[in-house]
């Protein structure tokens, strides 16, 4: 057990207040000067079903979930579907205790609510406690909460108990509760927090476990943010004032943040009948000159395929975000996966003319969201932001200064009426909106209502004034111009140089990954290097147009590389091989698609056994796929 970090897991049933309690706990630790990172696991149910959130806290920066955890607060599932042990779904009531033991580290702490949980229902509980040197605190949190009038407050009692065992001063939690809770429930919560704290101190040995909260200090003010917060704020800072959508987990988080904030910013949010309409509305608003977005998760995004193609053909600026979850079909709605990569790259008929960005961290999510709007409007091209359930909901501390930026309402290559007057027109005054030439492939646009700007936008191939035209020369000229944008965008992104490489520059081995796996892989790379394996990682956060040069340079510099991604068919590796046309013999894959994100140790283990030692992977959580031809 590592004593330089606390990984606190609060487990209960959906609807038991696990998410809000853990968020407050994480924030209290952040305020105390620690770096925090959360990982949440929940079922797709309204009430009941085993759920947990992990809060990892350390004096040093943390950018991933850890390997297992060292403190369990098991609250019991008060909405359990069926308490019968022989039921198909098992004894749900006991799951918050039973389901979490496998990952609890040796010497760890278990606090369980004896008012709801009976350890005799957990197979071999006592033996396992003995074997693993776990420290168990059975406390009737439910009764404590009942005495204070509200059973749901057993969360707070549990936090009080946690503080007593780990030595967190209650004042840190109290301060946060005062900020977050309405008057009516504040007092009883403060009381129960104290009660939980006192009971443990009076009746139990709190010094037994070798576990305490580290102390740390931040150089500057920190914010606790999720990927969804960061994406929404990036959009707002780019002047996005129109969003249309339809609810779907996990994209709903961004949609909700935008919908709650746009009205007071004088913007418009529309919840509409389906995702076809949602994307079409964003196109309609953007066509009028407004910065607009839509988005969904895999299934909803499937419906957006045709409007997306319309935006490509009419060169309407558009930002669509896609929050991946495990598929196919309804799949596992609340579990992360990175299997929509090909879906987002290629959906819609015809040649793809789009940009796809995939931020790796919460801080990057803000940047990528802003970049998506800039590229979409500057180049009049749909830009996708691809992320997943993991990045969407994980909370981590980000320096406040990261968000202290200038806003940008610029709508790119859009002309004013004065500028329009100098542009080419047909004899009767129709504006040449789609000229064959155009710097970087961009032909400037007008907006309805402008004098001298009228043109026809159409999903058909069209001539400079926008009229349907199937002349082969015109077709090739228009197609080539639209494709030219991608080269210009690639050059811009190369200049930005935002791809993140981590590890020793002259490393022997490499790891390639994309999107939300970044932090976990980087932690694994650090550990591998500490253990004497020379390895570095490149996280590819730009997927279309693909950064061929950067990836080629990276792969040239290493003997062999492992491609890490959360899907079953190695989509990112396939994309890399297609784009490079070389290096296939150097690339093997480590995949995970069981609904849980990688732990750093799984990558360390996969890398060591397959790349360094050429052995067999233990267990079935991850899967290794050798290089093509191997």
């Amino acid at each position: 057990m590592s004593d330089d970090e606390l990984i606190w897991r609060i487990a209960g049933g959906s609807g038991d207040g696990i998410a809000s309690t853990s968020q407050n706990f994480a924030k209290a630790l952040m305020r105390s000067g620690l770096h925090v990172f959360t990982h949440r696991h929940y079922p797709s149910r309204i009430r009941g079903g085993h759920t947990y959130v992990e809060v990892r806290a350390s004096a040093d920066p943390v950018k991933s979930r850890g390997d297992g955890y060292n403190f369990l607060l098991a609250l019991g599932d008060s909405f359990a579907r069926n308490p019968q042990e022989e039921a198909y779904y098992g004894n749900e009531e006991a799951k918050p205790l039973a389901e979490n033991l496998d990952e609890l580290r040796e010497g760890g702490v278990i606090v369980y609510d004896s008012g709801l949980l009976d350890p005799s229902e957990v197979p071999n509980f006592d033996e396992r406690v003995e074997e693993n040197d776990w420290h168990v605190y059975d406390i009737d949190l439910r009764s404590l909460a009942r005495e204070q009038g509200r059973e749901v407050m057993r969360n707070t009692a549990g936090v009080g108990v946690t503080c007593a065992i780990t030595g967190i001063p209650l004042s840190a939690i109290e301060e946060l509760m005062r900020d977050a809770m309405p008057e009516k429930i504040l007092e009883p919560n403060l009381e129960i927090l104290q009660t939980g704290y006192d009971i443990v101190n009076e009746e139990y040995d709190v010094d037994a476990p070798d576990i305490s909260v580290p102390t740390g200090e931040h150089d500057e003010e920190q914010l606790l943010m999720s990927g969804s917060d960061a994406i929404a704020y990036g959009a707002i800072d780019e002047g996005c004032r129109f969003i249309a959508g339809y609810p779907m987990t996990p994209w709903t988080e961004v949609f909700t943040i935008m919908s709650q904030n746009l009205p007071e910013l004088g913007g418009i949010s529309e919840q509409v009948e389906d995702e076809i309409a949602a994307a079409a509305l964003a196109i309609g608003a953007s066509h009028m000159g407004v910065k607009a977005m839509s988005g969904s998760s895999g299934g909803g995004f499937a419906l957006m395929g045709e409007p997306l193609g319309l935006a490509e053909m009419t060169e309407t600026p558009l930002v669509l975000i896609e929050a991946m979850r495990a598929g196919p079909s309804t799949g596992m709605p609340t579990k992360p996966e990175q299997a929509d990569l090909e879906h987002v790259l290629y959906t819609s008929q015809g040649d793809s003319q789009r940009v796809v960005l995939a931020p790796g961290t919460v801080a990057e999510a803000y940047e990528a969201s802003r970049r998506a709007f800039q590229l979409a409007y500057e180049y009049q091209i749909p830009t996708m932001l691809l992320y997943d359930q993991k990045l969407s909901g994980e909370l981590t501390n980000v320096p406040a200064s990261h968000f202290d930026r200038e806003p940008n309402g610029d709508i790119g290559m859009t002309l004013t009426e004065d500028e329009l007057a100098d542009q080419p027109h047909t004899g009767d005054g129709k504006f040449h909106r789609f000229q064959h030439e155009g710097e970087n492939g961009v032909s400037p646009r007008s907006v309805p209502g402008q004098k001298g700007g009228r043109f026809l936008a159409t999903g058909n191939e069209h001539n400079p004034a926008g009229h349907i035209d199937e002349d082969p020369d015109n077709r090739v000229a228009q197609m080539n111009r639209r494709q030219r944008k991608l080269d210009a965008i690639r050059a811009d992104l190369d200049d930005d140089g935002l791809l993140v490489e981590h590890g020793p520059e002259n490393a022997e081995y490499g790891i390639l990954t994309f999107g939300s796996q970044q932090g976990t892989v980087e932690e694994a790379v650090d550990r591998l290097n500490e253990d004497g394996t020379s390895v570095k990682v490149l996280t590819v956060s730009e997927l279309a147009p693909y950064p061929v040069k950067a990836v080629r340079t990276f792969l040239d510099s290493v003997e062999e590389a492992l491609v890490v991604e959360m899907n079953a068919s190695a989509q990112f590796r396939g994309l890399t091989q297609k784009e490079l046309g070389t290096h296939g013999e150097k690339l093997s894959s480590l995949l995970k698609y069981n609904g849980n994100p990688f732990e750093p140790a799984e990558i360390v283990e996969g890398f060591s056994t397959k790349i360094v030692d050429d052995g067999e992977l233990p267990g079935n959580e991850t899967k290794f796929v050798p290089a093509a031809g191997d």
Partner: protein
Amino acid sequence: MSAFSAIGEEREVDRDEYTPEIEPQPTWCPGCGDFGVLKSLKGALPEVGRTPEETLLVTGIGCSGKLNSYLDSYGFHTIHGRSLPVARAAKLANPDVEVIAAGGDGDGYGIGGNHFMHTARENHDMTYIVFNNEIFGLTKGQTSPTSPKGHKSKTQPHGSAKTPIRPLSMSLTSGASFVARTAAVNPNQAQRILKEAMEHDGFAHIDFLTQCPTWNKDAKQYVPYTDINESDDYDFDPTNRAEAQELMRETEDKLYEGEVLTGVYYRDDDRPSYQQEKQEIGEMPDEPLAERYFDDDYEWERSYDRFIDKHK
């Protein structure tokens, strides 16, 4: 000052301004009802004083979608069934622009039926023209949602087993605040109804009977027709929902019996448009959103100033 000087311009508008030099002659088949829509629209737009550059015509796919090519204005020829969501957002983004959506019966009542229902329900301030020829024309004569029961086509070799959709009743039930039917053979009535529809503050749906002489030969030319607002045979108040509902049903049945009834069936001038509803609850700015992006002095709000505190 508005960045859109075409909007609200006070001047005489000539119907010829709507004829594009690029495609002055439509390529619809001779005798096609679509000519009637184009003609009446070119007549109605100057009457309501709207110029080509303050008008956005949004179409779907089909013969009807070609309307954009033959009417010179700002145009958006979208995809099959999706004219309404594009048009709706355009209107929200800049309510000062005159927004007209158009498409065929397959486009509006079939593939885009969901959008039709919801756009009517929300009562967006726009005019929606459905070219109803009871057939799929551009794809060469397949059975459409308004084809009569028993209609034989290459895709329905034994005759359609389906009862046709009831476009007027559906519109009323969904919430449209102006519902009319007109016919291409009656351009004067069509022009009058189009003008009323554009002047109406809310969702105005016009089921426009457009005969298809190529693929629906045995179908009628929609003559003779009766104007229910003028005929002495119909004592009827279009502001009365119950009366409208009854007459719509009769009209829909009679079409398939060879009797063509047309006119304004329903109008509710008191119902607020979607824009008004949204502004009422503080979810839409008073100034057109589109203007903001052309205002160099606008001070864009920052998330840092607004939302950061709750993350501390």
